[in-house]
Structure formats: C-alpha cells, structure tokens
C-alpha cells in the first residue's frame, strides 16, 4: 500500500463519476478529481526522484485544470441558457 494505490484509486473514482453522473456539474467535478489525483501522483514521483522540475509541471497542470473548469462551467451556462437543461443525456441536440 502506497501513494500509487491512493492516487490510482482517486483517479478511478473520478473516472467512475465521469461515466455515471448525469448532471454536468457532477461530470466537471469528477474531471477535477481525475486531474487532482494525477497531479498528486506527479508530485509524489518528482519528490521521490528529487527533481525540482515536478513542481513547475504540477503548477502547469494546476493552471490548465483551472482553465478547463472555467470553460466547462461557461459551456454549462450556455447550454442551460439555450436549452434549459443541464443533464448530459438530455443535451442531444447539436446546433450552431
């Protein structure tokens, strides 16, 4: 039992959430779980290898994940404004 088990478990929990959640907020939160777990794993291996690079890479992952969350929530807002729905299985219509 180690950090690998913890982060792999959190990653797969997030994957399960992405696959089963029906609301867009839940899917986005599950994607945050996946990114957080992967970031912890990256940092753990970097710290074990005494590599200062891992800090900069973790910061990059953090920034990109935040940008992804902002765009996802904007898409949620736009989808609800256009269709009045926020469930992923109800958003079946594609139009410009």
């Amino acid at each position, binding site marked *: 039992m180690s950090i690998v088990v913890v982060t792999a478990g959190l990653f797969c929990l997030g994957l399960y959430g992405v696959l089963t959640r029906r609301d867009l907020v839940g899917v986005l939160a599950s994607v945050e779980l996946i990114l957080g777990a992967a970031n912890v794993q990256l940092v753990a291996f970097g710290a074990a290898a005494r590599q200062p690079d891992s800090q900069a890479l973790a910061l990059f992952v953090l920034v990109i994940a935040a940008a992804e969350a902002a765009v996802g929530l*904007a898409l949620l807002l736009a989808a609800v404004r256009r269709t009045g729905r926020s469930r992923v299985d109800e958003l079946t219509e594609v139009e410009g």
Partner: protein
Amino acid sequence: MSGIVVFWLLAAIAFVGALTVVATRDVMRLVLGLGAFLVSVAGFFLYFKMEFIAIAQVFVYVGGVLVLVLFAIMIVVRDEIGTPALSSRFSLPAASVSVGLFLLLIGTVGPEGPALSAVGWQGGMPELGRELLGTYLPHFEALGVLLLATLVGVLAISGKGESR
C-alpha cells in the same frame, strides 16, 4: 512515523470527498466533497514540501474554482435540486471499467511506488523560481497566453445567448 499518519489522514479525507462527489444526489454536498478533496490535495503538496504549489492550489481552487461552481449552481441547477442525479443504467459497466483500470495501473506501476519515508526534500521555492524563469520560461509565457484565451473564450461562450 507521524508523517505516515498525516499521509493516511489526507488520503482518508481525499477519499471521503471523492466518494461524496461521485455518489451524492445533493449538489451542495457535491461542492463540499469537492472542496474537501481539493484541500486534501493541497495537503498532499504540503506533505511533499511544495509550499508554493499548495498555496496556489488553495488560492486557485478553493478560492476560485469552487466559488465559480457555486455561482454556476446558483444560476443553473436551482430547479433540479433534489432530483436524483445518479443513473443506474451504466453503473455496472462503469464500475467494471474503473476497477479494471485501477488494477491495470497498479499492475503496471507496481503497488509499491516511492517509499513514503524517503519522499521529500528541502528548499523547493528557489528551485521553482529558477525552473519557471529559466528552463520553463517559454511554457510559462504560453500559459499566460492560454489564460488570456480562456478569459476571452469564456466571455464569448457565456456572454451572449438569450435567457430562457
């Protein structure tokens, strides 16, 4: 030895938060679970002696993304609170895929990984500054462009459109 205890405490908080996010039917509990998970990720960064990343995690996520999610829920989901959000149709295939990937990851990387007692080093922040403004300067600048593009894109996506 107390470091191991702290690590498993953080792992327990992260798992409780993640389980709440995955399984709850209440959106406010989802936000609380996500907050617990993100704070525990910041705790993991502190555990690995990366103070700057931990502070950035708290500022960006707990201060920014979590409040953003709260605002989105206030605007969007208020009429769907209380309705079941979990679908039972795909839960068994999704569970098998998740458990399979978990076993695959453990089998590939090996269950041991880096020993927890050997993890960590001192003096992270000066190295981080040198990396960011030295080796990774182009990437750092590209991230600034990405954030600007995100800002403009979010405004373009969410700004227009008629309200229902």
